[in-house]
């Protein structure tokens, strides 16, 4: 049962991020919410990498100590982190531009495109 605790944390983190995105009014807080969701996803991938009885996928540590787990989830997580970094940087730049243009960070006022 304790093995499922990480998945629970992933779920809680994801929901926290979602609630932040759905209820916050400030653009920066929304960006933080998206970052929390990304962290939850990365944690999910890392947790998936562990198999019962496996060891870390580092070559000299694993020698002769049983089976090492596949390093694929680590590679996936790293790629996801790189992508998350790119989007976070872009998102913050856009927030900065939005603030310059609209003079506010409140999403209730940034809605020129409608209808």
């Amino acid at each position, binding site marked *: 049962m304790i093995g499922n605790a990480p998945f629970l944390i992933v779920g809680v983190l994801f929901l926290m991020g979602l609630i932040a*995105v*759905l209820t916050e009014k400030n653009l920066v807080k929304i960006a933080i919410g998206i970052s929390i969701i990304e962290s939850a996803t990365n944690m999910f991938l890392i947790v998936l990498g562990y198999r019962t009885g496996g060891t870390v996928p580092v070559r000299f540590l694993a020698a002769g100590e049983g089976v090492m787990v596949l390093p694929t989830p680590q590679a996936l997580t790293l790629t996801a982190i790189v992508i998350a970094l790119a989007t976070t940087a872009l998102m913050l730049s856009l927030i900065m531009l939005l603030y310059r243009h609209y003079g506010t960070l409140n999403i209730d006022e*940034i809605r*020129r495109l*409608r*209808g």
Partner: protein
Amino acid sequence: MWSKVYSGFGYWDVISWLIFFLIASFFALWLRSLGRRDYKEGTEQDEIYWSGNPVPEDGSEITVPASSAYWGFRKALESYYSILTNIHSGHMRDYVGYFVITAAVIAALILIV
């Protein structure tokens, strides 16, 4: 290459349509050639009639703007369109909310069905 496209119920043949258009355009040109050519250019016969008023110089004063097109259609369906424009509120929270709600509904239904 020029054969017909069978759709199971009927077929579509581009050649017969092209022939139809040729015949139709022939008739149109023929009717046009029956018109009179003896109007005098530069006289009153050549001018625009605008309900007896002087015709404005600038064309923008006599065009119908796009917002006025299909005014009756929009007026008749006003309640429907008020709902639709309210959905497209331009509010990011609504955008994300519709997405999350759709995902949640479909994920719940797929487990039940």
